């Protein structure tokens, strides 16, 4: 290492570090998600929802404690576990105590482990992990820890709700399960097999397969198999380009039944499906967008659209993250010591802006909430996605889904 470059390094580092001189009366939440690269669309949209929620729900209401304001600090993790850990370190160094992340369960499990280790090794500056989207069940089961809170319904809970609906539909006799070849895809597949076996043993699973994630150029061969198997319904956990590719391909090649999905909305997907998806696409998710649950939700969504006309509220749970965190901080009376905040969060009940109640289950830090089955449609959607005229509308609701489901979580509490 030459001296000249060392000097350059010195200059560059001091520059960045000094650029983040923290101001005293803000409570910072680090938003660590992809802001560049292929998943940046989702990440940026999530960031906007966070910024909007912090502004509307906390700062405009006078903040927390003695008027402390929330501030969302964005970190680009490029959806890489390694980058996430670097950014986590940067965030911790800036004195940030709350880490929000959601895209990719792989990143989430890297983060939750790193945070667990960090909190064990550095008891003076512990942090909390607010997971708003990573749904791998392991995070609140085998991999759970005291510092991790999940605000989305996990893959098992969603599948529980989804199979309730499928079980109630007698016209479905044959189901085809297809997913991406990685932990989440496998989790969806095994949950589907398990729940269908319990609830409707008569349903035949005519296909259960995994395809390489992000590598399939053309889904036609898969569609052929699905059509050939005469499936009445498809269940898939696919997201992003894989969701779009699969969905368009099966519909194009003659499939006419419902496609039950986790992530077939917003971020360009709703627009790209458009008319084709009408009548087929079903989506399992929390958060009722259409019809609006109440005037407050409608006003909130309108205000969001006014600020971000190209944005979507595709992760309604983000309002719960912000509101519940604010409530917990107020209850704990401190924002710097995260242990009482975590205790306040655990077991907290909360009125969901999007309708119904939610409850942070103490045993595994999994939020229990209403889970809806939405339909992709262009008819009577108050708030469309991607400004496409199409959106998702609640068809069926499972109240407080899986509230008493089992968990293998055994967490050490400080």
């Amino acid at each position, binding site marked *: 290492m030459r001296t000249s470059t060392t000097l350059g390094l010195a200059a560059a580092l001091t520059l960045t570090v000094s650029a983040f001189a923290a101001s005293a009366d803000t409570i910072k939440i680090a938003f660590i998600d992809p802001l560049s690269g292929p998943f940046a669309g989702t990440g940026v949209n999530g960031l906007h929802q966070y910024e909007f929620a912090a502004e509307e729900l906390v700062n405009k209401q006078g903040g927390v404690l003695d008027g402390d304001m929330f501030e969302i600090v964005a970190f680009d993790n490029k959806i890489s576990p390694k980058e996430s850990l670097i950014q986590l370190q940067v965030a911790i160094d800036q004195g940030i105590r709350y880490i929000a992340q959601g895209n990719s369960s*792989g990143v989430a499990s890297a983060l939750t482990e790193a945070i667990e280790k960090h909190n064990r090794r550095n008891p003076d500056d512990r942090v909390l992990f607010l997971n708003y989207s990573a749904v791998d069940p392991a995070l609140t089961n085998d991999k759970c820890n005291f510092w991790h809170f999940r605000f989305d319904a996990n893959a098992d809970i969603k599948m529980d709700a989804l199979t309730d609906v499928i079980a109630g539909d007698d016209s479905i006799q044959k189901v085809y399960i297809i997913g991406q070849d990685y*932990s989440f895809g496998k989790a969806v597949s095994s949950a589907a097999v398990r729940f269908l076996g319990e609830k409707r043993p008569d349903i035949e699973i005519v296909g259960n397969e995994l395809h390489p*994630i992000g590598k399939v150029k053309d889904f036609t061969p898969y569609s052929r198999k699905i059509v050939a198997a005469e499936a009445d319904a498809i269940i898939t956990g696919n997201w992003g380009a894989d969701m779009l590719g699969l969905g368009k391909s099966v519909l194009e090649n003659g499939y006419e039944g419902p496609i039950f999905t986790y992530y077939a909305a917003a971020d360009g997907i709703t627009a790209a499906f458009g008319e084709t998806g009408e009548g087929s696409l079903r989506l399992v998710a929390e958060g009722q967008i259409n019809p609006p649950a109440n005037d407050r939700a409608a006003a909130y969504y309108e205000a969001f659209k006014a600020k971000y006309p190209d944005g979507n509220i595709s992760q309604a749970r983000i309002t719960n993250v912000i509101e519940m965190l604010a409530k917990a901080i107020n209850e704990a009376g401190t924002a710097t010591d995260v242990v009482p905040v975590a205790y306040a969060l655990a077991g907290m009940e909360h009125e969901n802006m999007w309708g119904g109640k939610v409850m942070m289950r103490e045993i595994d830090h999994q939020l229990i909430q209403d889970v809806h089955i939405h339909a992709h449609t262009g008819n009577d959607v108050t708030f469309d996605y991607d400004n496409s005229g199409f959106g998702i509308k609640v068809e069926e609701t499972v109240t407080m889904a899986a509230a008493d489901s089992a968990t293998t979580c055994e967490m050490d509490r400080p």
Partner: protein
Amino acid sequence: MSDQITTDPTKPAQRMRAGSMVLPLTPWLIAAVALLILPFIFTNNSAITIMNQMAITIIFALAYNMLLGQGGMLSFGHAVYAGVGGFACMHIINATDFFANLPLPLLPIFGGLFGMGLATIVGSFSTRKAGTVFAMISLGVGELIAACSVIIVAFFGGEEGISGDRTYGLPFFGVEFLQQIEVYYLIAAWLMISAVLMYLYSRTPMGRMANAVRDNPERAEFLGYSARWVRFYSFVASGFFAGIAGALFAINYEILTEENLNTTQSGIILLVTFLGGVGFFFGPIIGAIVFTLVQTVLSLQTELWAFYLGMIFVATVMFFPGGLAGLIMMHVPAWRLGKLGHLAWPYLKTLGGGLIGCLGAAALIEMIFHLRHASIGDHEMTLFWTTFDSHTVLPWIIAGAVTVIGFAICRATAPAMVEAWNEANAASKVTT
């Protein structure tokens, strides 16, 4: 160049000195001291994390340059050797019962051995030919192993990867590696060891012959060396050091995932090495430092970091194929003549102008990006510590003017700089 010729070659003693490759100690001492004191300058953990990342990238890039720069082999899948070394180490860390007595600081040796093992297997068929065949096999093997990482879950842990706890073993002389700073010194020590070893390797008969085979494989064959085996040994050696980098990654991040193996990672290391300069030993070091700073620090400042990086990279390939190191080494003749100072003022004028122009252009790009992609009503943007309204004309005029003026200065003073450059180097020809 000049003073090399002016050494009187008729005196054997002097010849011996000029020809011998005695390790020039000074730069290494400076590097060692710098590594020692850096954490005292940058005390916060994130700076240390970034420096750790830098050091790991340096080792990896140096290992890669053993292939590209010294052996002339272009690999599109080198990440797998680092990755597999790292994965193997993670398994060792997790197999606490079995390896409980293995001190953590020795772990990189095992990473190196695993990287080397894989390189031996792959190299046995991929190094038979150089050039495109080697490049394509490396790409194919890289893709295969990366794809395996999600299929063979038992070893690679699927897309979540595998993680562990580096504090598994007994404390090593009282150090438990709980803190980043302890890990930093461990990595720094391995950086010094690996860099010295790789430098020394380039001075051995094998290292020399790697250069020979790169330049002219056919001629090398008629010197008694099998080009294939020379390539093979270079490849294996490179795999070893890549494995060390992977092991250090495992220690530092305590997690390994598919991204340690995939072609993106392989592409990045190619980019890093080329940016730094493949022609000089220290080239990859500069490349790794600059790249890590761009990736971790610039990406905090702008979403468009990858765009800028792509431009820098393409510009480097087009205008300075020697990379940053080549650029620095261009100044050695002038420096030897003691005329480097003469270049300072012309440089300041031209490059300063160019820099201002580039910053202005960057400002314009950022403003266009903000205008297109920011939310409606969000007219405020902050650039270079100034907050302004991107929807008014004034900032555009300023940025545009800065760009034009910057490039105009650059253009106007360029002939003077070329002249100064020629003059600073021309004198050397007079003395020869």
